């Protein structure tokens, strides 16, 4: 949250897009609560298997279309995708996950010019974020 404030000067009114495993991420939960309290608008994006159905009841916008949602975002937060075997039922393959929900320089072209990208904790390079984006100028 401090990174967002440092980069943007404020949090209130910002559109913050959280992409990935919303269902199993405590980081996502605490960010959603915290950022909402500070006046941000939250969008969560991922396959329906990774977003709990009650999410909309928390006043959060739910999206399954990264390309559409990315255009609205001031901040993009990429969550780590779990790779344990049990969790493999959540989506068919890394390949298909990347196809729809991975952030690469192509999808990023759709984003606002001053967007900032965040990634809490360890990342699967090439899955959530392609290497060119991970090392690029937007990331924090």
């Amino acid at each position, binding site marked *: 949250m401090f990174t967002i404030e440092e980069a943007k000067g404020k949090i209130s009114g910002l559109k913050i897009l959280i992409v990935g495993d919303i269902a199993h991420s405590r980081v996502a939960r605490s960010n959603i609560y915290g950022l909402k309290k500070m006046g941000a608008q939250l969008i969560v994006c991922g*396959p*329906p*298997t990774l977003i709990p*159905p009650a999410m909309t009841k928390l006043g959060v916008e739910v999206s*399954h279309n990264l390309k559409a949602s990315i255009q609205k975002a001031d901040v993009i937060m990429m969550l780590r995708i779990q790779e344990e075997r049990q969790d*493999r*039922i*959540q*989506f*068919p*393959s890394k*390949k*298909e996950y990347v*196809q*729809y929900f991975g952030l690469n320089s192509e999808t990023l072209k759709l984003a606002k010019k001053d967007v900032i990208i965040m990634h809490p904790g360890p990342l699967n390079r090439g899955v959530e974020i392609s290497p060119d984006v991970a090392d690029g100028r937007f990331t924090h």
Partner: protein
Amino acid sequence: MEDLLIKNGKIKKIASPLKGTFDHVIDAKNCIVAPGFIDMHTHLREPGDEHKETIRTGAKAAARGGFTSIVCMANTNPPNDNPFITQFIKLKAQEEACVNVYPVGALSKGLQGEELAEIGSLKEAGCVAISDDGHPVMNSYVMRKALDYCRHFKLPIISHCEDTHLVGKGMINEGLRSTILGLRGNPSASEEIMVARDIALAELTGSHVHMAHISTQAAVRLIGEAKKRKVSISCEVTPHHLFLTDESVATYDTHFKMAPPLRSPKDIAALKKGLKENIIDAFATDHAPHSNLEKNVEFEEAAHGVIGLETALPITLKLVEEKILTLSQFIEKWTLAPARILKLSKGTLKIGADADITIFDPTKKIKLNQDAFLSKSKNTPFHGWTCKGEVLAAIVGGKIVYHV
């Protein structure tokens, strides 16, 4: 009486009478000119078991039976669980099939019911639904995740409703007949349990479940109740489950072995009532070709399934004579209903629609004869039946692909 003009593969004009000069005229006097019939549940055996059926022969059988579109299940060998197989099927169909072929993609990798298949890629390759048909998805968690995942892609899941643990080695309906014959029974509860589960999961996820080949009174009751609650479900019934009971198995004839098994007269009555009350949305053949290698063996060893493409129309037309359905309801359950469930822009003869047309004479008496079949396989339970309803022509995209 109206005339119908086809141009560039589309329905161009409907008038009575059409005036002008035409390249080709079909006289369909005293016949029914219907939208092309759709079989939403066909097993083509290509790739893998081409000795039973190929995409080419399955399509030929379809056209002869009056079907202009068929929807082929994923349990080929290898199964259609990845976009390369889907592309293979589409390409083969384009080159060799005389009717439209729509593939169904597998729900799980290898039809194993454990990990999701690449459903997004399957849709992009051209799959119109997702199903592990033949291999009921026993793991409710996997089924739930598949339903959640498919919601995003707006694909219906087709469920083969049998609890395989409860079925065990059961091979005919559990009841007096199974007891007399000494064959292991498959209780109707095996279907009831899975139908109930899938209704619960459709309700939980908001995704659509289409229940394939329902066979029991219990299934009709449960689906009827769930539809009243507006749960997103639909279902189909096959000709054999409507007109045959477990009594037929008396001679251990393997042409009466299928999954789910033939049930009792009480179940048939419920299925017919379900059709009348529109609880059952559609007909489907579950055309399942097998050669003598798989069928000309002991009942216990024989493969499940019967063919249906070339007998379905006259058999189900009996329901019109029995006053279960009107003629237009009968047509709808073979056309518009499956088109709606699978979101195909088919099943209508409106101006601008694809010129897929089935012409049949509903009064003409015919004798069903397996030797005349164009299917590679002969495993029909209806050989020798006399019925009314002869298919005179099948037209696909304005092209006559079959006529008598």
